[in-house]
């Protein structure tokens, strides 16, 4: 633990910057209803006649729209902030659900072992045989077939969270299971078992706190991956609808205009997406190295 805090004190500048960047984007997205100049989800707030105005700094820019407008006359900056919020909420939601489910199942599998362990881990094996994007496409696609409402602004985020989380929980379960097995073999856990504490309490009070470190690392790296997966699904047309766009939806819409000189609709959201994911990735990378003693202190 001592070495850990020492490492924390020696956080490289690049990680600081990346962390701040990611936090700034997340904060701006979270506060978008307060700080965005317009509300792009309010269909009455924009005017088609303002469509495709270039950013303010270019010759034909309009002072009202810093980064210009999209093809519907929405303020692009506002659409991006709201879009980033949608992307982060979906990505974060998927990570949260995957982490909770994964940690619980990992605890159960590691603590009880036997058939509980076998069933959970085999299901995990099967799920891991498929890449995230395929499974997510499948879940989103099937949901759309079963309930036409699945593509609506209310339901699409829930479907997307489920579609992404269904794959990601396995990683947590595997990590926590391994750690739990090690922990349950320790003397103090044996001791409390002998005292007769209920197993739920043992798992939650004594084992869980000790496996949280690795879970945090996985969650950080997964957040970046989940945001990318959501963007990809929206780009492929099974994500957020155009009336309630995520960053991926904005890029999909903007992609149709890249040849007509209207480059900003695709470029700015893509840039924001890359910056967000990059920031989270750098922090996640550093965290991973930190928890991996072999790599610590090396390039």
């Amino acid at each position, binding site marked *: 633990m001592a070495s850990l805090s020492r490492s924390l004190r020696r956080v490289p500048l690049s990680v600081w910057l990346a962390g701040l960047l990611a936090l700034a984007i997340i904060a701006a997205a979270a506060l978008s209803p307060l700080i965005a100049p317009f509300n792009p989800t309010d269909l009455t707030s924009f005017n088609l006649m303002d469509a495709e105005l270039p950013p303010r700094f270019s010759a034909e820019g309009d002072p009202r729209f810093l980064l210009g407008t999209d093809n519907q006359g929405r303020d692009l900056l506002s659409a991006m902030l709201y879009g980033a919020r949608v992307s982060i909420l979906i990505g974060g939601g998927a990570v949260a659900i995957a982490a909770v489910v994964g940690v619980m199942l990992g605890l159960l599998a590691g603590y009880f072992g036997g058939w509980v362990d076998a069933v959970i881990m*085999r299901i995990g094996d099967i799920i891991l*045989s498929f*890449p995230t*994007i395929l499974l997510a*496409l499948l879940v*989103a696609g099937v949901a759309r077939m079963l309930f036409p409402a699945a593509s609506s602004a209310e339901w699409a985020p829930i479907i997307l969270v489920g579609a992404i989380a269904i794959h990601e929980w396995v990683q947590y379960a595997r990590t926590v299971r391994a750690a739990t097995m090690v922990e349950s073999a320790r003397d103090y856990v044996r001791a409390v078992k002998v005292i007769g504490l209920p197993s739920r309490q043992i798992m939650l009070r004594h084992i869980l706190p000790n496996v949280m470190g690795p879970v945090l690392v996985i969650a950080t790296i997964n957040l970046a991956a989940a945001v990318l997966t959501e963007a990809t699904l929206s780009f492929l047309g099974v994500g957020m609808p155009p009336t309630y766009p995520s960053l991926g939806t904005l890029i999909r819409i903007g992609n149709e205009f890249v040849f007509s000189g209207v480059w900003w609709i695709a470029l700015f959201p893509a840039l924001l997406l890359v910056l967000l994911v990059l920031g989270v*990735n750098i922090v996640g990378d550093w965290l991973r190295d930190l928890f991996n003693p072999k790599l610590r202190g090396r390039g």
Partner: protein
Amino acid sequence: MLRFLIARLGQAALVMLAVAAVSFLMFRFVGDPVAGMVREDASVQEKAELRQALGLDQPVLVQFGRFLGRTIRGDFGVSYRNQRPVAALIAERLPATLELVLMATLLSLALGIPLGVLCALKPDGVAARLVQAVSLIGISTPTFVTGIVLILTFAVTLGLLPSFGRGQTVQLGPWSTGFLTVSGLKALVLPSITLALYQLTLIMRLVRSELIDVLSSDYIRFARARGLSLRRIHFTLALRNALMPVITVTGLQIGSLIAFAIVTETVFQWPGMGLLFIQAVSFSDVPVMAAYLLFVGLLFVLINTVVDLLYAVVDPRLRVKAS
């Protein structure tokens, strides 16, 4: 060894059975198969007859058994949208995807290993830092953005390379290849770079961390202490040991690449299985989706099993355990 083999094959069979079950559930319960087959003014009587003819009145387990039987015979039903046997559609699209994945894998190995070595040996050098930074940007950029940027630069602005499709293909029996024509090879360039990028960073990082790992092991320290040349240590001893997991991961990643090809194929309108699948999703073409799932599942299980078995053969520790 034999016990390991049997256990591994048993596990593979179990996974396939589970995938088949999911695929069957989709096929059977997502959308009414009868509604998709009868004319709109068919009577209740006609529908019931069709139901019986299709065996849909049987218990679900019996139906699942039949589904398995048909699947093993390679009969995946008929696509709702394209109105052709799904097996034929997949066979038609398979070469395009496999050639793309092969190119992407070669590309990522050819670039990823040297760059990884560079980063491991001179971790503080300018080149290594640059490569590291670029690789981070690489994994943070969505595939579709990379694809669009490449098309804009090399196809539209510079006019050097084609922006979509496979170019001219040559039919070798059932296999259509783009390797034998200039236009086919040119068409491969941008999509395979797009697809390889993520894989490339993965391999690079893996080579780096494995090499650092091996270099700090006692066994290398011992070699160094014995005065073996650095060159020999790095490239003969260390790299060889570090490449084991790289080969494993590359093998395992082939399945992921096939899945990731969905995005690349959409951006480049590459007529492979990924495009087939994404079109099936947007057209609610359940038989194609179910078959694609089964097919990719099979591929994954095969790759995983083969890699595991190979590993068992190659890895000295496992060999010792087995004997």
